[in-house]
């Protein structure tokens, strides 16, 4: 396979063991370097505060970084974040203008949690000033902006990491290693969905209705593609990662089916991604029922992995990628002159019904969804001044295909990726 994806993944496991996922490795890094990485968070809305709380909490254990600055152009958010920081006895410098923050040249890395349409220009400005960036997913609002961010990363040499936290989760890393090693046979389908039952609205002050588009940026097409960029982008990244491919085309449909409240993005979407080897990713998302929740089913010849709920369920077909099993294998052995007993006996396999075997965990020991590891790994990458190339490629392709899915919805056509966006 050469420097194959499997080797990339194996490398990532090594990275995980040494950099991203092992608690002891983080503490040793902090002791060794001496100089703390100076971090800033731009965008202190809900996601920004979520990450800031993680940073401040983990900072009590890992002394490798400090939060030196925060920034938001919406004063109530910034004030709230200052209060959170105070609880942790942290006093980062507060900015309302990101340009002033990055021109201060007092930060090594920026964690960018602004609305989607602001990702590209802020990221590119940071990268070109030598400031490393951990940008929330999805990368950008337009395909051209995604490409510009990637190009700026390559051109500047500054680190660009995208907030696909599953890439930092031991559970996912372990599963992908086994999938790519062929433990479960070829993957035929990814079935992924994210179902919620809420309007996704942020409260707008009654005396400031002009803030509607700023606070509810996820609902308007100028600033977001809604379910696609905010949710699906995570899961198409997982699908591409599992299949070790990017799609060849996407077909999709979307509608504003329930929340007819002036929003511009669909609250109900479905998409089919086609891959060169014939495998598929079947995706849907909605805002009007949460009973299915969030899941990625990775369906391979020998087993199904339910990634979000950490379940591995074996299937028992009598034919695998390595040849026949059971009686068919016995017949093959006979033809080869062998008389050894093949493992045949077991409970009846009923392939036409949903299997009821008790699943086993994919991985034991992963706490959380990988966000903590993502943040600490960003610090580590800044210290090392390097980032594995496969990570940005995963994020890039996830963002590109997320936005191509929007094109498929808007056009009603099967969409392929223009050559100029292929990296």
């Amino acid at each position, binding site marked *: 396979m050469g420097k194959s994806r499997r080797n990339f993944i194996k490398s990532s496991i090594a990275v995980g063991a040494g950099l991203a996922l092992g608690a002891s490795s983080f503490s040793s890094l902090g002791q060794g370097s001496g100089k703390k990485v100076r971090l800033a968070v731009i965008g202190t809305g809900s996601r920004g505060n979520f990450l800031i709380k993680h940073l401040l909490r983990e900072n009590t254990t890992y002394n490798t970084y400090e939060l030196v600055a925060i920034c938001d152009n919406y004063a109530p958010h910034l004030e709230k974040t200052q209060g959170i920081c105070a609880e942790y006895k942290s006093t980062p410098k507060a900015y309302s203008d990101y340009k002033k923050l990055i021109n201060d040249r007092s930060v090594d890395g920026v964690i960018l949690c602004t609305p989607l349409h602001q990702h590209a220009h802020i990221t590119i400005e940071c990268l070109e000033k030598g400031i490393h960036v951990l940008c929330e997913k999805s990368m950008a609002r337009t395909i051209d902006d995604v490409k510009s961010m990637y190009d700026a990363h390559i051109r500047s040499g500054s680190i660009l990491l995208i907030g696909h936290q599953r890439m930092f989760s031991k559970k996912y890393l372990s599963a992908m290693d086994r999938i790519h090693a062929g433990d479960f046979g070829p993957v035929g389908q990814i079935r992924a969905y994210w179902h919620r039952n809420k309007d996704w609205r942020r409260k707008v002050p009654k005396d400031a209705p002009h803030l509607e588009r700023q606070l509810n940026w996820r609902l308007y097409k100028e600033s977001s593609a809604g379910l696609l960029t905010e949710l699906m982008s995570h899961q198409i990244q997982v699908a591409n990662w599992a299949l070790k491919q990017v799609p060849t085309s996407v077909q999709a449909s979307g509608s504003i089916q329930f929340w007819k409240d002036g929003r511009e993005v669909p609250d109900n979407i479905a998409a089919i991604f086609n891959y060169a080897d014939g495998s598929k990713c079947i995706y849907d998302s909605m805002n009007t029922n949460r009973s299915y929740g969030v899941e990625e089913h990775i369906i391979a010849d020998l087993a199904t992995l339910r990634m979000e709920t950490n379940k591995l369920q074996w299937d028992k077909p*009598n034919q695998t990628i390595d040849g026949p099993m059971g*009686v068919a294998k016995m017949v093959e052995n006979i033809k080869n002159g062998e008389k050894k007993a093949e493992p*045949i*006996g*077991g409970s*009846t*396999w009923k392939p036409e*019904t949903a299997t009821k075997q008790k699943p086993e965990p994919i991985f034991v020991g992963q706490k959380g969804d990988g966000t903590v590891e993502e943040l600490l790994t960003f610090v580590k990458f800044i210290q090392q001044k390097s980032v594995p190339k496969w990570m940005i490629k995963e994020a890039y392709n996830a963002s590109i295909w997320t936005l191509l899915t929007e094109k498929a919805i808007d056009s009603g056509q099967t969409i392929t990726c223009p050559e100029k966006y292929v990296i």
Partner: protein
Amino acid sequence: MNLKNINLFYDNYFGMNTLLEVVLWGQSELKQQRCFNQISAGLTLWEKILSRFDEEAETFVLNEKAVYAPVKVSTELWQSIRRCITYRELTHGLFDVFYLSDQSQEKSVDELLRLDTAHQTVHFVSSDTQVDFGGIGKGIFLEEVIRILDENEMENAFVSFGGSSIHSRGRHPHHEASWPFSFQPQFGMTEELSLTNTNLSISGLQSGNAHIYSPEENGLISTPKCVAVQGQSPVSVEVLSTSLIVADHEKQASMIKKIESEDIYYGVGTVNA
């Protein structure tokens, strides 16, 4: 051994929601193919008798109509019901094709249905009586397989019905006297068996430590959760393997005395639901 001379035959067929696999050797290609064709046709036929899911199946129709009036049934279905009633008694009610009926365990057969031998009719006397041959259908069909193999003078055959119901006769082409057989590794049974002219039924097998039942130890050492029963009747071993899983020690000993078997293998693990 020259494989061309032995005419090794392998084919499979799907029925009763299960994969049937047949290995034959030692007869002419034509005869073996004809034998397999008869087996696969027989499977389709028996599914049309025993299925409670197929709207055209006799059991489905029986479940739908027998509560309203006596339903005349085929000889095959009639005999199947009669045998299941006998096994219900031999297993202290643990093997119960009427389990879908409301509180079936507390009801006698007479409270569930009435059989008219003269007219070969079945009448459900309880409004919720239902029949399900799911626990015995493979065994019944293996009897049919044995009959077809006998008729076609097949001396060497290995038949697997979903890996859980096995019939073997004669020997493996490269083995002196039997068919070597082992269990799927995830179920934890490490025994390697030599099967010949016998039937094997496996129920609820799952990982765990396996051991062979010993009559000298006066019953089972621990509650079995995985059971493989070997014997001359494919129906008896099917019933016994199913019933032993849920029986207490006293009933296990009673059933083993009453129902014919050759060997019983136990695994202690969790039931594969």
